[in-house]
């Protein structure tokens, strides 16, 4: 079993790693061989959306996922505190010798189209009346964390923006790992992605966490 990164963050400012984060780590560990075989012959561009504390990106840096010395990592978050936390977590785990940059960005809107080989996304998936507004100031601390949690109708408003654009986000060989909770109705979502949009989609891991059932699906061509 691969080691989990050390984390020391201010959880008033960024999302605290929880069952969902750990399920993604387990999923990436399980997929290590698939990813290595798919990407070992070229440079791969890895992008995590919403890294929060940086636990998942640091895990990939630490263990050379998808491939050692052949990957560069971008962590994109709307929350400026998460970008600082991600750098700090990478440093705490001695990953300064790997290629990581963070970008303050609304999802992938700032990245060139069709360049991401591995996309990882633990979205705000909690059903809510609305997706919160982006706070006006960096110091509106408690408002930033809400953005990491609340996903509007069915908890799917933000995830749907990514799924809808997956074609222009991923490189032709790209793979996306996305986390869902049961209230997101992932089976229906996956069925739509397969039947209407021609994606391959597979369940990687699922787990009961308290009263919630979490799952990670991968999407690829």
């Amino acid at each position, binding site marked *: 079993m691969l080691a989990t990164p050390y984390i020391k963050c201010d959880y008033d400012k960024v999302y605290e790693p929880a069952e969902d984060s750990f399920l993604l780590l387990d999923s990436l560990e399980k997929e290590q061989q698939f990813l290595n075989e798919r990407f070992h012959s*070229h*440079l791969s*561009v890895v992008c995590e959306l919403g890294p929060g504390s940086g636990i998942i990106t640091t895990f990939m840096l630490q263990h050379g996922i998808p491939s050692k*010395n*052949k990957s*560069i990592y*971008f962590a994109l978050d*709307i929350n*400026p505190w998460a*970008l*600082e936390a991600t750098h700090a977590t990478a440093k705490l785990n001695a990953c*300064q*010798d*790997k*290629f990581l*940059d*963070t*970008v*303050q*960005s*609304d999802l992938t*809107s*700032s*990245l*060139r*189209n069709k*360049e991401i080989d591995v996309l990882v996304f633990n979205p705000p998936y909690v059903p809510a009346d609305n997706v919160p507004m*982006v706070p006006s100031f960096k110091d509106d601390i408690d408002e930033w964390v809400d953005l990491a949690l609340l996903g509007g109708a069915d908890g799917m408003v933000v995830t749907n923006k990514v799924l809808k654009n997956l074609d222009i986000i991923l490189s032709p060989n790209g793979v996306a790992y996305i986390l869902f909770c049961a209230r997101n109705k992932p089976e229906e979502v996956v069925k739509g992605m397969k039947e209407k949009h021609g994606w391959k989609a597979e369940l990687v891991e699922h787990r009961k966490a308290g009263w919630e059932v979490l799952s990670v699906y991968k999407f690829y061509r």
Partner: protein
Amino acid sequence: MKFLTTNFLKCSVKACDTSNDNFPLQYDGSKCQLVQDESIEFNPEFLLNIIERVDWNAVLSVASDLGNTALPPSKPVFPATADQLSEEDMTILRDLHTLLIQTSISEGEMKCRNCGHVYYIKNSIPNLLLPPHLA
């Protein structure tokens, strides 16, 4: 933000996606502070993989924005594997390592060549978020 990252950042404005001028962004050389960060070791194989992938015209464009016009006009060609590299290849790769990976922009600004929107880099982190009226 490392120089290589400029090879992946475009303007966040959706309407600019239909333009060819949303990438690379235009960096303001007079306002960009460059620092050298040596924490990533030189690894010729990593560099070969990076060079295979980069958009060379965008490398040239940003390098020139930042005052470096000494790069070859077309992407250098190297042998397929690291063990076939000549001394001269290694020298070029070391220079490209210095530029693409060690050179970071710690403070600065850049704009979209299509819509003119200006983005800022602070504490080495670029901010590509748009104000609400453009998002």
